[in-house]
């Protein structure tokens, strides 16, 4: 099998794209499986922020830096 099989999790973007024919073709009254454009943007931006901003690593590197500075200070 060359491609990974499609699992349980569908990306929010894909759900939105799949819902477009229903909005355009049926003008469906219910939201169905459409995540909503605004909620989609909010979700993706927050996911991106989580991906970029690593508080744990930042704290770790600050701690490492402090450790190095302390050692330099002690030597002086």
């Amino acid at each position, binding site marked *: *099998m060359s*491609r990974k*099989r*499609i*699992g*349980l*999790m*569908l990306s*929010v973007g*894909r*759900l939105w*794209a*799949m*819902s*477009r*024919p*229903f909005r*355009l*073709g*049926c*003008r*469906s*009254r*219910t*939201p*169905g*499986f*459409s*995540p*909503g454009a605004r*909620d989609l943007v*909010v*979700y993706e931006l*927050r*996911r991106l922020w*989580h*991906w970029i901003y*690593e508080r*744990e*690593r930042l*704290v*770790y590197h600050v*701690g*490492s830096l402090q*450790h190095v500075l*302390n050692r330099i200070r002690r030597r002086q």
Partner: protein
Amino acid sequence: MKKPMRVKDFAALQAWLETRLDAIRCVSFDVFDTLLARCIEPPDDIQRRVAALLAEKIGGITPDAAFEARRAAEWELRRAALSDGLDHECHFDPLVESWVARLAGHPDPALVGFVHRTERELESLALTAKPGALALLEWLRARGVRVIAVSDMYLSHDHLAALLADCGLGGLLDRLYVSSEFGLGKYSGRLHVRVLELEGQTLEGLTPAHVVHVGDNLASDMRAPMQLGIRGIYLDERVERLRRRRQTLSAEMAALGGVWPGRRFFEVVDYRMEQDAACQAACADFFHHYGAHVLGPAFSTFLLGLIEKIETAKPDKLFFLARDGYLFEKMYARWRELEPGKHWPEPVYVYASRRVVAMASVAEGLRPEQAVVAFYNPKQQGLLSVLKTFGLPAEDFADLAREQGFADLAEPLHDWGDPRLLAFLADERVQTRIRSIGEIARERLRRYFEQQGFFASERVALVDIGWNGTIQKFLRDSFGKRPDYPDVHGWYFAFVAAMHGDFGMGDRIEGLILDARRDDSYERAPMDFEEIFEQGARSGEGTTLGYAEQDGQVIPVLKDDGAPDRQGEIACNPLIERFQAGVLDHLEHFHAAWRLTGHHATEIKPYVLGLLERAVVYPNREEVREISRLVHTEDFGHDHTLDIGVLPIRYFDLLRPRRLYRKLKNKPWKFSAFAHFGWTLPAWLFRLMHLLDVRRRS
């Protein structure tokens, strides 16, 4: 103080430890998010769920109020600990007693026991050992290193030890230290000091330099131990951390409703399935994977809807209709095992088919509006199909048919009001013959259903894949006037109401995943590929052709295995079993996720509809190739089989969309024709065209 240290996973930790084993006498681990992972985030959601279940048990309290009461009790205990000079730790036992007393107005040991059992059960469902944790602990113990766990946790020592044992780590830890038992936390360093003292009693001459502590919290698991001279190692698992953040974000989005609660719910299911090694191994097989990832969510959501219906309507018995009710009965039986404390209606698997109820329904004659049921068969053969659908021997009616102008009984009738057909049905000699056959069939059907306890019940429910509710309708037509005819509900996976509308049943009939009366076009994916759902749910035996008597009992007569369509089905039975094994695997994790989140079927259904839309309209090449191997039969009295797959189309065909649409629109799985393109735009455009056509026709 030593340099801060981090590792990215357990393999890296093992490599680091291997070179320093001579100097290390004890390795201490944090528990949550280090040795154990939760499938649901944030962890508070488990407490919220316990609060919701407690509120339900007490009655008259909202889940939010119950949770707030817990918070208040917890903060009171934490403040008391601080004023006693301890860290702000609290212990689960006094917390639960205080919480229950606040809600119930008095101490209640039964409710306290309920909270303890529920929290333990939910934590156990949520937790799994992290991949690699078990192997690392075994490796350390084999090298004579003492292995301990230190946790900042409100649960008691015994409670946490039981959870570790549930996850398979219990026997691998020499000792477990829990902050709640000491009133001291890791974050202040005081618990680490206490652990060193106590461990020093076991390991003579133990100094902080002999100890390594590993954890995911920078303050508690790295900085605090390092200030004491213990080597603190930060477990920096980025993928796992992002997974937890994503799930926390999903939990927040779930409050918006729509597709979000379902998406959050299946994140939990997905994580659990990923951690289940047996499930992962079985999913290497396509059919198991499809059962677990496509049919599983749909059928499990249907089952959850069914459970909710049972709680509301409280039927005496559930009649699972052969053959497509087969899997649903197995799923229901499993759900009953998973929820043992409740009263569940007895399930009965009944052999009934469209054919046997149709035969019984003509005991008072065959009306034209009944006869047209036969023409829903895509391969209908006119009058011959009408006779076969109602189990009427064609040779008995051939002479009378010829009199009405039928030269060939098998000639398809595209005009459902064909004058020859109307004249044939108006012929009293035809009706007399039909009635005599119908009366015998009705009597046998009555005796069979009587034997199954149908007429002895006050309220029953029929459970099946559905589509038109034909069996429910014909049963009512045949026996509805009897005084002991029960209050019959029909709960189906899908109800398209095409053949007979809802025949005046109103809310006594419902499609839980698809109900055409709701006019929600998002639900239509099952209607666009009914065959896959029928195949996924069916039993391995042949359809019911009638009934016979044996030793005073009425037994079903099933279609002979030698029939050509049965041969095809029998060859596919092993594939169907693999589908169903996948569905049942999914159900285990689905149930756990349901216990943890408490979501209703209606909340998770929008996401399931998205999964079905993906599977039906945007299949990939492998799905089309494998599913096209299935043989599908039509239950219209013929021996026909249906070709599921469609020959792939070419790019050239896309230039003539109307012709292409006409060519594909009556195929059972029209969207499969686009799978080989490898991108979804052609199928997307075809879906749009299809929906526009549906809208125009309606």
